């Protein structure tokens, strides 16, 4: 099981369409071959300068690694990446009876929800919101101001009165947002 640099995987990603079609088309042979070859660790991701300077870099890297594991294989990598596939691509591979594709609006929102939900209890608590906010603003905003931002956000979103944001409440707040445009990456051919 060799470790490989993320860049060498970039050239594999030019076969993105092949692989994702294989995934949705359940081409197990191809997937099995690919998944045995490469593994990535957190250090591999941290070596990407543009990711290292991203305020939410650590949360994004975390999204790739399953619970308690330090390595992600190619299949897991592609699964996470698949969240950012444009929704319109689903028109081409319509499978009404299949599982909901990873890049559906709902799954994209779930991905964003998990960025906030640090302890994976399906709720965004005030504390978790504060921690993520702190990552995004650094040292430039005081605890008090940040606290009031967090309070306001929870107040607006919370509907069942538990002072936390559940996934349903999260979806409701973001119902007018163009998730497709903000959370999709288009490949050039």
């Amino acid at each position, binding site marked *: 099981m060799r470790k490989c640099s993320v860049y060498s995987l970039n050239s594999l*990603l*030019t076969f993105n369409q092949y692989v994702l079609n294989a995934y949705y088309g359940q081409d197990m042979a191809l997937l099995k071959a690919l998944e045995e070859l490469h593994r990535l660790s957190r250090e591999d991701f941290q070596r990407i300068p543009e990711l290292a300077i991203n305020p939410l870099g650590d949360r994004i890297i975390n999204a790739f690694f399953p619970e308690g594991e330090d390595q992600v294989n190619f299949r897991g990598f592609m699964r996470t990446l698949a969240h950012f596939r444009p929704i319109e691509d689903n028109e081409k591979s319509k499978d009404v009876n299949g599982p909901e594709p990873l890049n559906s609006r709902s799954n994209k929102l779930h991905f964003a929800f998990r960025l906030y939900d640090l302890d994976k209890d399906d709720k965004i608590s005030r504390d978790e919101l504060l921690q993520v906010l702190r990552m*995004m603003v650094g040292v430039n905003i005081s605890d008090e101001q940040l606290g009031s931002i967090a309070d306001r*956000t929870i107040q607006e979103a919370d509907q069942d009165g538990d002072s936390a944001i559940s996934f349903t409440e999260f979806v409701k707040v973001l119902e007018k947002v163009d998730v497709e445009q903000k959370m999709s990456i288009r490949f050039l051919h």
Partner: protein
Amino acid sequence: MEGTELAVQVVGTWLALVLSLILLPSAFGVSLGISEVYMKILVKTLEWATLRIEKGSPKESALKISASGGIIQRDESPMEKGISGHRGRDFELSDVFYFSKKGFEAIVEDEVTQRFSSEELVSWNLLTRTNTNFHYISPRLTMVWVLGVLVRYCFLLPLRITLAFFGISLLVIGTTMVGQLPNSSIKNWLSELVHLTCCRICVRALSGTIHYHNKQYRPQKGGICVANHTSPIDVLILTTDGCYAMVGQVHGGLMGVIQRAMVKACPHVWFERSEMKDRHLVTERLREHIADKKKLPILIFPEGTCINNTSVMMFKKGSFEIGGTIYPVAIKYNPQFGDAFWNSSKYNMVNYLLRMMTSWAIVCDVWYLPPMTREENEDAVQFANRVKSAIAVQGGLTELPWDGGLKRAKVKETFKEEQQKNYSKMLVGNGSINTESS
């Protein structure tokens, strides 16, 4: 014995041929046209190979990455526009989308670290080392490839090594001899002659085809020449068309011998390792050098490290603080004939030179740009960026603000802090935060 006599005869003929066909003409700057013929045959062969490959795999041509473009569509708008339409608005849960999309774009296509490894070719050029995505196409193509291997390793490689040996020995002997003469204009003229001859021989040793553009802007004495850096061969390429004073560290081994010999013939600026750390000392010595208008222009590579010739990375401001006139030069290699990039973490110098000598050829374009000087209201960093843009535009390279030092070091935390600051400014706006629910 007959065996040794035969061997001596073969080697003798070989050397005589090399001498008459290559060395002597180089000394006089004359070309016999042999390399032009070679290049023509090579270009035709590679074109044929490209056509065969495209015919052989129609499906894959749909997935080809363009040579200089990216593989994803990137939204380069600044943070304010990316998160919302206007400034000074409140935090929303959707803000996280912006950062996560940027993060994923970086993962899918890392603009920075890809510059520290060789450029991927759009079409295979019949060298084993660039064969990453291409499969077996046809027996004819394979035969051509085998023929290529034989030609490169059994004919070209010995030839090139012979030439390189002659070139370097002549350089060392020549400069030592010229160094014995007293300082005079004859000494300078002879020194230039020795330099140019040996450089031409060394360029032939790599089957180099170099096109110089805009020779009227060639760097003058008392100036500083800056160029983008791809490999140690850059030095060879530039010195074939003019004489420069080199700047750099004193090395040991073969490089050290060459350096010491060169210094005897004309003044270069070599530093001890300890001296390189003292920025003021370095700046002072360089200033002294260019103040003397009779001394050769200094050659500096402000990127500080080798980049893979698809982009120009951050120019370190040190060279731009010295003052004087800057003569920018853009160097672009044609990757189809051989990859000139020195990946120093992968290959050492000897390995690298062997790879160079077993490529088809080194083909490059050199553009001399009009001289630039620092303007009144510009600081060294802005001036450096201006020069960098000019070089990038001329050479058709991407311009990146990232430091070439990221090859070995981690990126500084200050960049992340800058992003955090920008985001905070967006939230806080003109100093007030909306704490009441609207």
